């Protein structure tokens, strides 16, 4: 039979690839979802330094200090009860186990065997998970994000936010966020990212559930964790990474678009609700490995923003080397804007 002969040749030598993939456990375990790459989160050692936010919810927009808003996060008491130390991590990308697993890191950054990795029985029931987000009480929030297939992540559950109790470690459904359109068989995703604001005790959640190639039905939600009520911050946009920062002119929610290499923001009031209209903050076209990436995660320091960018095509492709790039920006309080850092 005559067969048309191949096209692209992957130019990387196998030996090199093996080296890349052999840093931990087996190579097989390193086939990762773009969404979950780097979601080894919540390095408890950082939290264990005793960083503790003291202003709690009494602050107002005018007296929110300029800077990031997540330093109140606390170690879940159950972690200490299980014997984990300051180097423990909550890992939602350990693909050998579904859901989340907790383990200590050795001094060279590898998974420690003692104490034995811990997974509460409920941590696998929601399928594969998003990056975990902690709050001021040590509660953990995650969304269900499919990996490779939707076998364990049915679209019907793609907009559910789960909470892990800080004392019992039990994972339970917190909310099933309302959708603008039903799930469809071309878009396997719902929730893509979560983030937290200590000032207002709010959880922000981005979702693209129901979006199609031709129409965006995505939403950004605010969950008031005092009441567990959700409201819609922005409607009709597919967004990916999100984060809150207190700037010179007040609090703003930053969100990366899921379809373009851009970051927008919208002002928030004292309670964390939107005011005004979104504005474009950053365009990172041409940057990153492929030059057409999306902002998967947004994180802030006191005057810095870091954006991790990856490819995202609304498919379940899983790559061994996602070539994630981190872009850094510095806050300019005079102009209330962000400048790229070299």
């Amino acid at each position, binding site marked *: 039979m005559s067969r048309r002969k*191949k096209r692209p040749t992957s130019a990387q030598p196998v030996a090199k690839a093996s080296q890349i993939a052999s840093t931990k456990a087996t190579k097989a375990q390193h086939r990762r979802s773009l969404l979950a790459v780097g979601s080894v989160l919540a390095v408890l050692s950082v939290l264990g330094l005793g960083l503790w936010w003291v202003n709690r919810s009494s602050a107002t927009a005018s007296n929110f200090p300029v800077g990031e808003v997540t330093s109140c996060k606390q170690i879940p008491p159950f972690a200490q009860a299980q014997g984990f130390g300051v180097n423990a991590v909550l890992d939602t990308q350990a693909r050998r186990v579904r859901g989340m697993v907790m383990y200590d890191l050795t001094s060279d950054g590898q998974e420690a065997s003692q104490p034995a990795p811990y997974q509460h029985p409920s941590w696998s029931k929601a399928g594969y998970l998003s990056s975990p987000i902690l709050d001021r009480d040590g509660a953990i929030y995650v969304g269900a994000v499919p990996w490779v297939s939707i076998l364990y992540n049915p679209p019907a559950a793609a907009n559910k936010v789960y909470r892990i109790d800080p004392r019992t470690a039990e994972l339970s459904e917190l909310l099933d966020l309302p959708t603008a359109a039903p799930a469809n068989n071309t878009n396997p995703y719902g929730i893509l990212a979560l983030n937290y604001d200590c000032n207002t005790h709010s959880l922000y959640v981005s979702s693209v559930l129901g979006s199609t190639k031709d129409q965006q039905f995505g939403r950004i939600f605010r969950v008031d964790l005092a009441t567990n009520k959700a409201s819609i911050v922005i409607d009709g946009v597919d967004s990916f990474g999100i984060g809150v920062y207190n700037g010179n002119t007040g609090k703003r929610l930053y969100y990366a678009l899921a379809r*373009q290499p851009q970051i927008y923001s919208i002002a928030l009031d004292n309670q964390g609700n939107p005011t005004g209209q979104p504005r474009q903050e950053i365009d990172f076209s041409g940057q990153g490995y492929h030059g057409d990436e999306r902002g998967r995660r947004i994180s802030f320091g006191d005057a810095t923003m870091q954006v991790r960018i990856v490819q995202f095509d609304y498919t379940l492709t899983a790559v061994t080397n996602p070539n994630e790039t981190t872009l850094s920006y510095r806050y300019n309080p005079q102009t209330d804007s962000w400048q790229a850092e070299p």
Partner: protein
Amino acid sequence: MQRSVLYRLLLLMMLSACGTTPAQHPTTTSVAAETPAILAAEITPEAQNYPLLTAYQQVINQALTATPPVLTLGSLDSQQAMAQIVALNEPKLQSQFVDQTGTPFRNEVFGVVPVRESDIIEATAACLQVSCYRVEVYNFALNLTLAITVDVSNQKVIVVERLANSQPDIPEYLTAVAREIASNAAEVEQALGYKPTSDQAVMANTKTALNATRCERSIHLCVAPTFVAGERALWAIVDLTDTRLVGVRWTNVGATGPAVTEKGMQNEAVLKYCDHTTRLERDGWAFDYMLTSSDGLRISDVSYQGKPLFKSAKLVDWHVNYSERDGFGYSDAVGCPYFSQAAVIAVEPPMIGEIRENDQVVGFQLVQEFWSELWPEPCNYYYEQAFYFYFDGRFRPAIASVGRGCGDDGTYRPVTRISLAETGTISAWNGTQWQAWQTEQLQGADTRQINPDGAEYRLDLANGESYTIATGRGQFDDGGRGDQAYVYATLDHPERDEGESDMVTIGPCCNTDANQGPEQFIDNPPESISNQHIVLWYVAQLKNDDTPGSQYCWAESVLRRGVYIPEEYPCWSGPLFQPVRGK
């Protein structure tokens, strides 16, 4: 639409209830390309039309046998020439030009430029006192640049930077080669409406990458000669690693939009097969075909000589199981490259080609390839799906894995679904005669009997046509070693949609028995399938092998002429449907 309205009403009610008003993101409009990208066909350039390319390939061959194996840059002044000699003869650099076995990479000097004061860093501080040059050597195999700073005054190398995923500006001779490839391409001529000269190509030395390549899938060095025609510009992406045209695409001059890249062109060319069915009528066969979200390439309304045969046929899932790690593997869906449930995606449109037997054309094939971006690196996959249509009415849905997967202990189990267009009865050979299956059931290879004509099953359709079905046992001369297939026959239930529309993942990765998913459609008790609309499911079991000389379901990267190319060892599977003549 009604559903959408309902959701919006619910949203309004909800907003009224909570008293907050969500903001609206500014409307963004994405303008669809008026003329979608065209991917280039692979050709063998004729030397008389490509004198520059021919000469370039000759000097590449010479460089690969030189010591060191580096294509040097000509037309240099004495200082530059000295810098190049010093750089390439630096003893510590010799291992950079070859792989671990000493086989040469394709290395080329792209530039020798004086180090300016503003370029000097701590490591090159000596260059403040002496004359220095920076020699840029590009390695095509590894897609990296060696930036070698040379103190020409003292004839020594000061510092070497190894820049991964980095491409220097290309030299003039490569610019000319790129222009020659573009201006001779049939796709360029077709798009422009005339054959351009190479001088008409502009911006050829503008790499399609800033920080890294934009031939982002092949990881090759690419440039984009551009032909301006009024308000529009035709981008012709040329792959200088493979020295071929990737494709062409029109853009509006001055308009902003996503960069024109290899991946963008490929997706654009593929997506039209995701959005619409395409009708094909050829050699007595007629059918529609379409790329699905997660069921591979689907053919439907298949008829032969005007008689309906299949309602549809498609590839539902790949179950990949690694035996040495209990429960480890993947359920891979294959499908469209954008907005799909596919884990392994189509990167080129479906292809139609001839089928040859004994040097005779005996039919045609419709082929679709799906692959992971970094294949054949470990844990990346490449699957092929083909439908063979023979002039004499034979039909074969064929599937192959081309590795490489996550280990040498893998078993691939592709799940194919074939829905019959007519009512009929399926029979199995029991050793002496055809015995009709009265009810839904499945059968594994261990209990199957082969009739004297080499088939195990027979279909008798209500329209009077009959077909035998032979499972793959290594008899198809395609390298297949036998499918050890499970065959399932279930009743078609259109009202339940048991897989006629796009199926979600049908089952887990790692069952090693007949529980691959289709068994869930065998009712309890099994329903009658005698003279009914039957759905056939075929699950081959293909064990991979990386043993040198007998590789199977496998792929390796090998260094050929200085660049890595994949060496493929596909494992083809699939049953053959053969018309029963002279009943």
